């Protein structure tokens, strides 16, 4: 171990993720896990249960968990959007990437170089870095919006004509995609986009937690972002 690595440094801390954002993050994460597992089994059911049909409600329960988790996710997402308006400016970051600024694209380039292991060190960020912001915005925010819309459209089919889900979603979304089966297929694809996002998200969070210049994982528990050095961001 070098003395350098453990040299005394002052840890600056900034409060980034407010309590509602953190709570939402973890509720949302659990809901997504439940949705992916149950959703996969709805698409590819487990081997048959034998015995009388009246003795079992396995598939019914799987669907029930899927729908319940979906509503939790939807309500959570709506509250999260609301919080983007009333919370601190970090709460707006993933919804509105600052793509109109030159700095965003320049720093995005730097972050890509960092991930390509060409740049020697990343820049410091109080919130998300531009690459993370962009991936979260495209894959997560729009991915979830897509899943909520297609999901409610499929739910509305079962709820029937006259239900608000049918009127608001199924009635126009199903003809838009062609027919019900197409919406099902796209909803499956959407799940895989979210799973790909989760893999990238967790990997990047762990990697950044180890290799970047600020805390990552613990920040989503405590809300505080700490920095490991007090050098300027682009040093």
């Amino acid at each position: 171990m070098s003395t350098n690595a453990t040299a005394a440094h002052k840890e600056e801390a900034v409060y980034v993720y407010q309590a509602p954002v953190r709570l939402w993050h973890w509720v949302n994460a659990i809901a997504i896990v439940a949705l992916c597992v149950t959703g996969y089994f709805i698409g590819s059911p487990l081997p048959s249960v034998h015995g009388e049909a009246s003795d079992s409600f396995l598939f019914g329960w799987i669907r029930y968990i899927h729908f319940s988790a979906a509503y939790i996710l939807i309500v959570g997402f709506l509250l999260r959007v609301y919080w983007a308006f009333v919370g601190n400016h970090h709460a707006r970051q993933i919804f509105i990437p600052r793509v109109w600024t030159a700095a965003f694209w320049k720093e995005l380039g730097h972050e890509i170089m960092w991930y390509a292991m060409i740049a020697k060190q990343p820049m410091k960020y109080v919130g998300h870095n531009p690459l993370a912001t962009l991936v979260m915005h495209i894959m997560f925010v729009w991915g979830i919006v897509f899943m909520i819309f297609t999901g409610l459209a499929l739910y509305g089919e079962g709820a029937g004509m006259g239900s608000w889900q049918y009127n608001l979603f199924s009635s126009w979304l199903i003809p838009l995609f062609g027919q019900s089966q197409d919406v099902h297929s796209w909803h499956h694809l959407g799940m895989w986009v979210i799973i790909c996002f989760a893999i990238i998200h967790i990997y990047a969070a762990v990697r950044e937690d180890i290799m970047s210049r600020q805390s990552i994982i613990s920040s989503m528990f405590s809300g505080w972002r700490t920095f490991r050095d007090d050098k300027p961001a682009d040093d």
Partner: protein
Amino acid sequence: MTETFYDVMRRQGITRRSFLKFCSLTAAALGLGPSFAPQIAHAMETKPRIPVLWLHGLECTCCSESFIRSAHPLAKDVILSMISLDYDDTIMAAAGHQAEAIVEETIQKYDGNFILACEGNPPLNQEGMSCIIAGKPYLEQLKKAAEHCKAIISWGSCASWGCVQAARPNPTQATPIHKVPGLAPKPIIKVPGCPPIAEVMTAVITYILTFERFPELDRQGRPKMFYSQRIHDKCYRRPHFDAGQFVESFDDEGARKGYCLYKVGCKGPTTYNACSTVRWNGGLSFPIQSGHPCFGCSEDGFWDKGSFYDRLTDIHGFGVEADADKIGGTAAAVVGAAAAAHAAVSAVKRARQKGGES
């Protein structure tokens, strides 16, 4: 003066008692209250029969076959005489020039008042040469009749969506009625299915006659009373679905016990039709009841959605045919492998840096 339906029925020897039975059964089939039966009877007794031109484009005649097999009481007498079927080349007595003269006559005599029933659709490529009727492209006949009709009924999946002749790559460019360019903007009711259920067809005509308007349609132009629910919503095998009891292959124990056909590709959950309630052949059975999954014949483009025995649509354009789960699973595996590789490289880099520092 055109005679009424009632006149025709009586002339054909149908008793008033049978006639009233037909009215109340039709009211029930349409989902109307008992009070509507007299209304239907009244309409049948007083209103002149609607003249109908039944044109055939690219089709297989399964709609006509279904229609004449309506198992409703009095079907063979009532249904065919209910509408004043002025032209239907499959079942009319006239042929050749005689038959074609009737089209002209109907158009002139009932200009703006007849119903145009379309079975099949016109091909647009080669100026419609892939479907010739009496020496002229069907497309011309259709456009002319549409110009003068009151409303259009699109019978079956051909007229409604395109069906098999419009399946990829659709060399003749067979086009459903509502998408034919330059067609007069007349109200269109779609009665999809390959074929549609006979009772649904007759009920739609009865409704139009009784109330002189279309029944309530959904966003895609189908009558809500028959197409507002999926096969799945009223399937008698639904308890097996909820229990998680599925047929895994066609010769297994589950198949013999009548389990849910979801895993062998049943399209019931994505198909809007009345098969599971009205059923076929006089309520005798329907595909799922006979042990075969629904393949969604009343849905748009059902020929192009991959295997009839898979629930996911094949997605083309990836070089291979694959469904959403194969593509998504592969993508997730690639992303996972990439993350692992990236992690390994990162670890090596970090170890080297530390090594350099010490």
